[in-house]
């Protein structure tokens, strides 16, 4: 299954830290640390997901009527964009594994472009909501939101601001993760351009990739729950 050590142990590279015995040990430590961090990320988002399920359990009509105001098309476009960015990120890691620096740079740029497209779509969605009184928490304007819903042939039932509070929290926290992702992607893009990565050393590319895939994973669950629920 694994071809590890097929070519014998790796020679130390420029980023080999003296307190590790081998290059593989250094890479393994970094990767385990990353997985533990990803575990905490999942636990953090699980709280918001639970809040969603509780609200859904107690106020099903309210959730179903409010979600009609979210655009399935916008959410769908964002899903496709994020899945594509996950693919280009995986390609960037593969390019690093085989030592193809131009391909790393190309795929990282594609990933960043996808992330920016995602944020632009999110901006269009948010500003459309804000313009119609659908704001987070106490700024929610019920009268304007109801008017907006009626103009689109829907009716608001119950307490829509609770649903939209959750919507803004969940997509907002996810959006913050996308922004942080753009930051770390830029960081490894600069390092890739300097030729830091190759088959000997690609831990940062791999770990940023893992982070980016988790951002994608969260969206995979947010999209059906918030946009597609029935």
């Amino acid at each position, binding site marked *: 299954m694994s*071809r590890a050590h097929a070519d014998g142990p790796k020679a130390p590279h420029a980023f080999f830290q003296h307190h590790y015995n081998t290059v593989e040990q250094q890479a393994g430590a970094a*990767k385990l640390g990353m997985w533990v961090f990803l575990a905490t990320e999942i636990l953090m988002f699980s709280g918001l997901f639970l809040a969603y399920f509780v609200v859904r359990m107690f106020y099903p009509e309210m959730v179903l009527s409010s979600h009609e105001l979210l655009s399935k098309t916008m959410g769908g476009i964002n899903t496709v964009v994020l899945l594509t960015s*996950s693919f280009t990120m995986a390609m960037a890691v593969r390019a690093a594994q085989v030592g193809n620096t131009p391909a790393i740079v190309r795929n990282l740029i594609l990933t960043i472009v996808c992330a920016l497209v995602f944020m632009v779509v999110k901006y269009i969605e948010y500003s459309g909501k804000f313009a119609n009184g659908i704001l987070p928490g106490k700024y929610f304007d019920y009268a304007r939101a109801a008017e907006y819903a009626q103009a689109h042939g829907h009716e608001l039932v119950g307490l829509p601001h609770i649903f939209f509070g959750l919507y803004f929290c969940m997509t907002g926290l996810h959006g913050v993760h996308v922004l942080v992702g753009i930051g770390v992607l830029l960081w490894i893009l600069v390092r890739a351009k300097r030729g830091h990565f190759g088959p000997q050393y690609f831990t940062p590319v791999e770990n940023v990739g893992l982070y980016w*895939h988790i951002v994608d*994973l969260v969206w*995979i669950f947010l999209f*059906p729950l918030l946009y597609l629920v*029935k």
Partner: protein
Amino acid sequence: MTTKTFLNGKPIDDVIEVHEHVSPMSTYIKVLGALFVLTGLTYAVSFADLGSAGLPVAMVVAFAKAALVCMFFMHLRYDDRYHVFVFLSTLIFVAIFFTFTIFDLQSRDRLNEEQGTFFRVEQGADWDEAQRGNKRVVDAKAKADRKAAAEGKASDAAAPADAKAADGSAPADAKAPDGKAAP
């Protein structure tokens, strides 16, 4: 290479910390294709009225997509089993978190009634009115609690009656039955 790895003070041979696996391009392209197909599927299914089956179907598809991303994009299929363990252990804790919270919320209706806890706004209720009602209940209870604390080991039975006297317009929820222990 002459570097040696030590575990518990003893040198060990052929230690493997990282399993590297370079997947072929075709794998990634197939996975991306499958992810797009599944996304199209949930999108299409959301327009069909499945009733109560809608959520389970959406969740099954989401888990399938998540599994594809984890196994192939995140290389968990080829990775150290310990990373799989770390990842799956979070799912166990999330499951415990969800199960116990939802069990608790579903089975405490009677308890809320006894304690007079403001808990849920009925469908179609006026939210502002509900919030005002909540504030009355909370204020009355806080006042009663303060009084009870001031009187030292005051009996709990006296507190609700006091609360009622303090605010005659408190909704029915606020009337905690006498003699119930409310710590």
